[in-house]
């Protein structure tokens, strides 16, 4: 049974990100010949002297014309053990917005550095955003080793530089992704899919081998207390099942078993799980990420936006919270701004009651500001019009996350991670 790994890539312009992804797709035989032919044609038309694998990932015409990547693109490849979804996040315009988006669902962040340049300010940003988004694993891909003579001293130096950054991140965010550093050369293909003959001093896995092996079982919150946001109430009202009432949703975290005592939030009423239904038959238990339908032992007034949670470990139910917000809109966010806040399956009106500081993701310092602008990340206090059952994002990447929407235009304004509830 093969499983799924989602990873996000990050790197400064020209570090070789597109080449690396092209290489992964190509060497894992996920590039089809017609795609390759089209890339070969374009490459030849542009006068490139080699087939530019980077072109495999530039989808939109504007991107091909300008030779840059504009928006997050998703790529797919698989090996017999695992399937992979790659969120390819471009480094130019809208950098923070793209990386935060890609990292939000990632099990692993792939951060590229050019061996000749070492750890740059951009690298610190990428690592900081991975830490902020609580991506559980990070690969430091030290690329273009061919241009430094495959020298282990260069690699060691980059690893040492990054260790210092990691230490800073740990003290700032309280935790850090698990880091693996791999020396590679994406263009000729060293240590991407095949172990490199040119770097015998390196005894770790090639990138693909690492991606296949990295354990993500514990990262999906299956060990956490149960959280089940109700999405939709199922009432067939059929002659066969006149009284059926089930709460459909996706397990956000933990495990829910038939017979478990649960609390429905925000009402706080208690009951037990009478059954867990699926089209394929009843289950004894549902785990994080499964989409199921839960029946309760007693008729409670439960509807979309409510959350069923483990009775012995409920989240806080609050109307005020502190969060780190990544702002993604042109018009700035200020204290007093009114927005819509979507948290799990509940959308409520909210007001920004305070804006304390802006985080400089490169220096990890912060400064006090009056507003958050496009691609800024800052600390925000919010008050919601009705209560939410929230966890701190550091504990739960699902029930600690929210997005902010513009009530007038409907646009997505920003992404938020709950820091504290009060």
């Amino acid at each position, binding site marked *: 049974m093969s499983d799924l790994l989602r990873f996000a890539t990050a790197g400064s312009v020209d570090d070789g990100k597109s080449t690396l992804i092209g290489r992964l797709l190509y060497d894992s035989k996920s590039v089809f010949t017609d795609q390759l032919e089209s890339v070969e044609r374009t490459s030849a038309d542009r006068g490139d002297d080699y087939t530019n694998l980077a072109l495999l990932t530039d989808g*939109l015409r504007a991107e091909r014309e300008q030779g840059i990547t504009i*928006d997050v693109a998703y790529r797919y490849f698989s090996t017999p053990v695992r399937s992979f979804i790659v969120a390819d996040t471009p480094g130019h315009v809208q950098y923070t917005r793209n990386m935060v988006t890609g990292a939000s669902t990632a099990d692993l962040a792939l951060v590229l550095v050019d061996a000749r340049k070492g750890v740059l300010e951009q690298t610190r940003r990428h690592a900081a955003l991975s830490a902020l988004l609580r991506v559980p694993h990070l690969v430091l891909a030290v690329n273009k080793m061919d241009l430094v003579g495959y020298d282990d001293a260069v690699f060691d130096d980059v690893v040492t530089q990054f260790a210092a950054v990691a230490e800073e991140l740990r003290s700032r965010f309280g935790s850090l992704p698990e880091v693996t550093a791999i020396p590679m050369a994406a263009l000729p293909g060293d240590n991407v899919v095949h172990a490199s003959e040119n770097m015998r001093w390196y005894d770790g896995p090639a990138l693909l081998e690492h991606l296949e092996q990295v354990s993500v079982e514990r990262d999906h919150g299956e060990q956490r207390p149960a959280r089940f946001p109700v999405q939709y109430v199922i009432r067939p009202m059929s002659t066969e099942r006149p009284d059926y009432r089930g709460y459909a949703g996706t397990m956000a975290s933990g495990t829910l078993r038939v017979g478990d005592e649960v609390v429905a939030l925000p009402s706080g009423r208690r009951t037990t799980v009478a059954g867990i239904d699926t089209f394929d038959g009843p289950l004894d238990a549902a785990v994080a990420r499964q*989409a199921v339908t839960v029946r309760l032992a007693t008729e409670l007034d439960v509807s979309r936006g409510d959350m069923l949670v483990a009775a012995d470990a409920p989240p806080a139910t609050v109307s005020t919270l502190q969060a780190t917000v990544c702002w993604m809109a042109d018009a700035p966010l200020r204290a007093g701004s009114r927005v819509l806040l979507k948290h799990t399956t509940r959308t409520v009106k909210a007001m920004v009651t305070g804006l304390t500081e802006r985080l400089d993701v490169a220096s990890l310092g912060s400064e006090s500001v009056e507003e958050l602008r496009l691609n800024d990340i800052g600390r925000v206090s919010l008050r919601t019009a009705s209560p939410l059952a929230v966890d701190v994002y550091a504990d739960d990447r699902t029930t600690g996350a929210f997005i902010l929407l513009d009530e007038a235009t409907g646009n997505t304004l920003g992404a938020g991670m709950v820091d504290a509830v009060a």
Partner: protein
Amino acid sequence: MTIMTGLSQLDVLEAESIHVMREVAAEFERPGLLFSGGKDSIVMLHLAQKAFWPARIPFPLVHVDTGHNFDEVLAFRDRRVAEIGARLVVAKVQDDIDAGRVREVPGGLRNPLQTTTLLRAIEEGRYDAVFGGARRDEEKARAKERFFSFRDAFGQWDPKNQRPELWNLYNGKHAPGEHIRVFPLSNWTELDVWRYIAREGIAVPEIYYAHDREVFERDGMLLGVTEHSMPREGETVTTRVVRYRTVGDASCTGAVASPARTPDEVVDEVAATRVTERGATRADDRASEAAMEDRKKAGYF
């Protein structure tokens, strides 16, 4: 009864698609599901059954009918709709041709004409959310597509101004007249679709499996002899064992030589295939590298 431990990749994809479908049912007034009888829309329909069981699927199915159909696919469509007791709305490209809203190029392809019919169907049905079976792995312009893809009052897609999509929090906000295209299979690949068809025992039109067919070669593709695709002078007809990888417009959808007669055999074949399904079998997508992007901007699927 079973306890599941460790979700497989297909389990995760299935749950994600079901989640998306339930979000739409909960947040929109009038969703519709595009159902053509092709394998992706069949899988989508299967997922919709799972999402709302034991209730019925709470929205109608919509077929944009080019008129260039494979008989087997239309028969399958009607059988499936009857089985689940769904409501089917058919919007015909022919009606738009007859009304002069689009002009057919003689001997031309009808795929590009479908946009007008699709947008008319959306307007007439007043759908505010339309499920499509497109996947991001199909084509490069689609790789940037969102699960919830905003369309303006003219049905247009603006690839450079898309809403960021984070975690599993989808933004369905839109004004009257605008709508959202929803792609529950965004993260599936062709191989995933076939593995799922095999795992779930989902029925698909028989032309997806190897069968004898009279075909002729054109532009490197094998076209079946039908009323919509007749051999021209110099094109010789032979009977070969073929199957279809996609079942779109019969006049331009090619078959591939294949001995795969069962879902498992198709899975093995797809896993070993080195040509995309569009490259292999869709004349319209070969027109230009940016063909899909242009059509999508104008409101295509």
